[in-house]
């Protein structure tokens, strides 16, 4: 709990440091990416099921929000919830055949799924605008209060992120969370102790897709312009990198990973082309030298450092 309160205070106070600056805009994206990283981590870190197609669910949320509010003039808040339910249902139905697969095959199937969704965004030009994108998506508003500045969007996005984080933390400490970890360790053993592994995997896949869809809707409304390029395979890999860097199975880790990977390109501006090289190198190095991610790797390093200090003190 202490950790969570610390986290809340940081989230609430952060804008005081950066107010008005360009960095506020980046922090809005950091919030959206944190939601997505948590969503993927529930699936990958807890249940041990990989997905390389999560950018697709993110995109479905964004496009449903974009199309329903611009073309059909529906209420944006209603669309966000409806889109999330629809994406969840889609993932639930799809989950039965997809999550029957394991390891490499699962990775390839979700990858294929993500690419099919991406191709559909590109080809259904009448609705999505195709490769040139969809613009003019309205900003969210409550009454006459419009979320039209970075700071307002910041509190909106992070408000939702904090709620999702709380739910995810709660889930991971619950019976369901323990069942998911059991599946991670050995699916057969989990089945033996009476966990309906098949259903549970599909359910967590659907929940993960729902969170991604909400993140997509918020993205569409805060940027007001979307194009397929944001929802391709590369973004799925970026999400994977966030989760791995932060630490598989650690919710706070996902926050760290998302924050780091969102801020990184800003520090490397000018060297824009290098970021793909850095993602690749980071993924490989983390997996080889810090397989627990930052969330577990940093305390481990600190411990080792402390121990070595003690060791030299005794000698």
């Amino acid at each position, binding site marked *: 709990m202490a950790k969570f309160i610390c986290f809340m205070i940081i989230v609430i106070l952060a804008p005081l440091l950066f107010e008005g600056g360009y960095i506020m805009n980046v922090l809005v994206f950091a919030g959206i990416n944190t939601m997505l990283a948590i969503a993927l981590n529930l699936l990958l870190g807890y249940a041990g099921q990989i997905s390389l197609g999560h950018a697709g669910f993110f995109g479905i949320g964004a496009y449903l929000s974009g199309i329903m509010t611009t073309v059909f003039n529906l209420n944006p808040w209603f669309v966000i919830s409806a889109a999330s339910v629809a994406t969840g249902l889609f993932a639930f139905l799809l989950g039965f055949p997809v999550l029957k697969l394991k390891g*490499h095959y699962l990775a390839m199937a979700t990858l294929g799924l993500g690419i099919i969704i991406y191709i559909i965004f590109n080809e259904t030009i009448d609705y999505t605008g195709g490769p040139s994108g969809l613009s003019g998506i309205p900003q969210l508003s409550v009454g006459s209060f419009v979320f039209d500045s970075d700071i307002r969007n910041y509190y909106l996005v992070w408000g939702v992120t904090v709620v999702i984080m709380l739910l995810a933390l709660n889930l991971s400490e619950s019976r369901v969370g323990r069942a998911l970890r059991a599946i991670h360790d050995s699916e057969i053993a989990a089945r033996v102790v009476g966990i309906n592994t098949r259903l549970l995997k599909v359910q967590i896949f659907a929940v993960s897709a729902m969170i991604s869809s909400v993140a997509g809707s918020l993205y569409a409304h805060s940027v007001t312009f979307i194009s397929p390029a944001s929802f391709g395979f590369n973004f799925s890999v970026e999400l994977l990198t966030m989760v791995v860097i932060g630490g598989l199975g650690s919710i706070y880790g996902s926050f760290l990973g998302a924050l780091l990977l969102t801020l990184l390109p800003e520090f490397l501006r000018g060297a824009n082309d290098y970021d793909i090289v850095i993602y690749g190198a980071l993924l490989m190095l983390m997996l080889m030298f810090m397989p627990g991610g930052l969330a577990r790797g940093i305390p481990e390093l600190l411990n080792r450092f402390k121990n070595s200090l003690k060791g030299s003190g005794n000698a």
Partner: protein
Amino acid sequence: MQFDQLLQFFLSGVATGAIYALIGIGFSIIYNSTGIINFAQGEFVMLGGLLALSFTELLKLPLWAAIPCAIAVSTLVGALFERLAIRPLRRPTPINLVIITIGGSILIRGISMLIWGKDTHALPPFSGEEPVIIGGATVMPQHIWIVGITLLLISINKFYFFHTISGKAMRACAYNRRAAGLVGIDVRRMVLFSFIISSAFGSVAGIIVAPLTMTAYDVGVMLGLKGFCAAIIGGMSSGMATVAGGLLLGILESMGAGLISSGYKDAISFIILLLILFFRPQGLFGKSESERV
């Protein structure tokens, strides 16, 4: 719909299918000896094409000399990848292997982008651009090269796996790694070999397809996935089943692009991939196996 046109789609499908088959065999060879799906396989296809281009344009080598050099360099990259990334991995669970090979693939792609830029490049065709007419359909000489080289490589592959000691040792690893180790086969060396062979296969595929479709730093993703699709249809065999899978995929894709819509061309192969994975994960031609605990 005229017969000529169908024949045209069929013949160009065969040529792209041959490419998918070569890439797919690369996937199967590594999978069979290590249980790894190498997500970086497509990058070797890209490397083959771009390296051949650099050897012809920068070093002014003739094509017949540039090609072996390009294959040698990409094979070296494949060997290094195995030694530096795969072998030192502390916990080689399937998910970690997926992530590390994806990391490797992005790294190779990113470095290639820095070296060759984002433009598309074309390699000159091996023997002119005078089309050959076969029964009303036009075929580029490059198509014939592709099919010929694929056939040649598959025969060599067959010979290697069934008639040489190291090929037989690799097959032994595929059946049972521990048993292979017990009879004195150096399993780690066989793993290295499998990466060498499959990156060589991938780079050849990349070189022979480059004159036809152009090449760029990012062609590896799609070509790699389609090759994987071919291997899945063939049940991850490193023989004729994967070749059949590649040809089937190439022909369906070319027919689909011609008759239905070219925008959805790539979607066709992924829908086939999903259907096969859902309903016949053992491949179209394989028998199902029970799960071992």
